[in-house]
């Protein structure tokens, strides 16, 4: 059984406000509240996910925890150390990567990048070569280490990022959207590397836009929107929130109004309705009743397609975000 002391990360009511300048003659500071009182904790050896729409505050949270940003208020401790006051003690014990192709010296080789960062992380000179060799094997870049980073694919660059973050063998690793912009094969390799890290006892905090990714990887997920945690649980528990809902996705090229009020008569059987483009997602526990009513519309071409499936984590996520917005 794990106790409070097993928590590697403790975040209490963390807030971050940025200020943007508006106006030319009369310049005014306009506050932008990126994070508005986030609280959560992460246990040792856990793979914790943060998901949320763009601008929800995921990256800002990760940057505060990785000591790159100072919180406006609230507290965050890592290994019991304050990320604001004990910066110099926290930094050698954490690793972090930010998604995309940034964060590497593209004109240098992968090997030179790793050597450089190994020096910044004060690795013993004798240990550097051995450690880099090990990591190149782990991330599958052996043989390409002498090539310039600018010749690497996005997946290779992301794997190099991961190797860079692991150089000093940190106990805690922050991965901000590690598979963004990577093809499915590359993304799968990254996910496998992340799983291996957890198997080796590392604690990982990961942010992502991909629900299948966090469902596959994470022990627990925090859903963040407008800088607040609006749901936090295991993927299974979050999915259970849909109470066994089934999703009927229908395509109506002429919009919802073409259903001639049919939807209103079905309201009593629907738990949620979401519209995205010409697709209506109907959440229900009695799909047969809905299908009986909608099938004739398919024949009349009012509906061009019907898809029935169990609610996925993505459906639950969309539900949570839309309900929060409402």
């Amino acid at each position, binding site marked *: 059984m794990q106790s409070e002391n097993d928590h590697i990360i403790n975040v209490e009511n963390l807030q971050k406000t*940025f200020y943007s300048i508006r106006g030319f003659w009369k310049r005014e500071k306009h506050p932008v509240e990126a994070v508005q009182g986030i609280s959560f904790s992460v246990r040792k050896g856990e793979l914790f996910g943060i998901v949320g729409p763009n601008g929800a505050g995921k990256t*800002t949270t990760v*940057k505060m925890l*990785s*000591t*790159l*940003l*100072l919180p406006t208020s609230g507290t965050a401790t890592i290994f019991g150390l304050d990320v604001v006051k004990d910066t*110099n003690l926290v*930094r*050698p014990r954490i690793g*972090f990567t*930010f998604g*995309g192709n*940034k*964060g*590497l*010296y*593209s*004109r*240098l080789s992968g090997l*030179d990048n790793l*050597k*450089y*960062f190994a*020096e*910044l*992380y*004060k690795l*013993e*000179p004798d240990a550097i070569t051995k450690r880099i060799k090990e990591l190149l094997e782990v991330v599958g870049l052996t043989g390409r280490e002498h090539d310039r980073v600018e010749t690497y694919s996005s997946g290779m660059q992301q794997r190099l990022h991961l190797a*860079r973050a692991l150089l000093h063998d940190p106990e805690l690793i922050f991965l901000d959207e590690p598979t963004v912009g990577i093809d499915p094969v590359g993304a799968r390799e990254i996910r496998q590397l992340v799983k291996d890290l957890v198997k080796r006892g590392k604690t990982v905090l990961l942010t992502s836009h991909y629900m299948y990714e966090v469902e596959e990887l994470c022990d627990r997920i925090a859903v963040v929107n407008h800088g607040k945690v609006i749901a936090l649980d295991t993927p299974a528990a979050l999915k259970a929130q849909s109470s066994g809902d089934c999703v009927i996705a229908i395509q109506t090229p002429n919009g919802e109004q073409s259903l001639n009020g049919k939807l209103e008569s079905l309201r009593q059987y629907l738990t949620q309705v979401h519209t995205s483009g010409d697709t209506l997602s109907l959440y229900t526990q009695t799909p047969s009743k809905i299908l009986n009513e909608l099938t004739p519309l398919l024949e009349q071409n009012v509906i061009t397609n019907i898809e029935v499936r169990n609610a996925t984590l993505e459906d639950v996520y969309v539900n949570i975000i839309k309900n929060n917005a409402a």
Partner: protein
Amino acid sequence: MSTLSRTMRLNRLPFVWKQMNVQFRMRTLNLLAFGLTVTQPVIFSAVGYFLARTAGRAQIDFIHTIIGSGVMGMWSTLLFTSFFDLRADRREGTLELLVGSPTSIFSILSIRAFANVLLGCVSFLLSMIVAMSLFGFALPHGNFPYFLVSLAIMLFGFWCIGIFLAHWPVVSRLSGLFLNYLELPIGMLTGFMFPVSLLPAWAQWLSMLTPLSWAFKGLSASFQSDIDLPSLWINWMMTLGISLVFLVGTFFMSKRVQDMIRVTGELSSV
């Protein structure tokens, strides 16, 4: 010195070398920066030479035309590299990795500034070579040991100023806009291009606040055939003293800079 501290010091040498190595490789792989190091001193030498000729001087002022152009090239290289390096780091997303590493940003920027000063030396030497090979100048009879000491002290001054300058692009993305306001005015204020005595009194006072003006006086003095030793010593001491003020001031400023950027979130290029 204890064995442990000696070991730690020696252990930092690869770090210093690796930092400088990265700097040199980035510089030589960056055509713009490489061009800057090579072409700036040549341009400054040529401009100085032709201006002096156009003015119809029979005897061209070696110190301000040739040495001054070389030092100006060095200053220019240091100024631009200090700003461009960090700007590139911000653009490439490596600045936040540098700041987030256990090595202080002061250490990183000091080593980079040192590498940039060495690159500035290349500019200086090129300028001299151009002056002698293209324009037929001969080195005046000076005192070589004094010249070497003056040069070393001047490099120290440049290094301290380089560390100070390198912190500004960390503070603000817009600091690069002021580059052109610094390059020539400092060149004039420090006496690289013409004697400071030609400037208005207030500018001469300002000039005394920069270590580079004292350093240049020292370097110029070492080329004189009859060296005024007490005056040379004053120049050296003033250079070292003001440079140290910059160095210590920048050291304390560095922590504030780190905290400031962690508040504003100016580390990335977004």
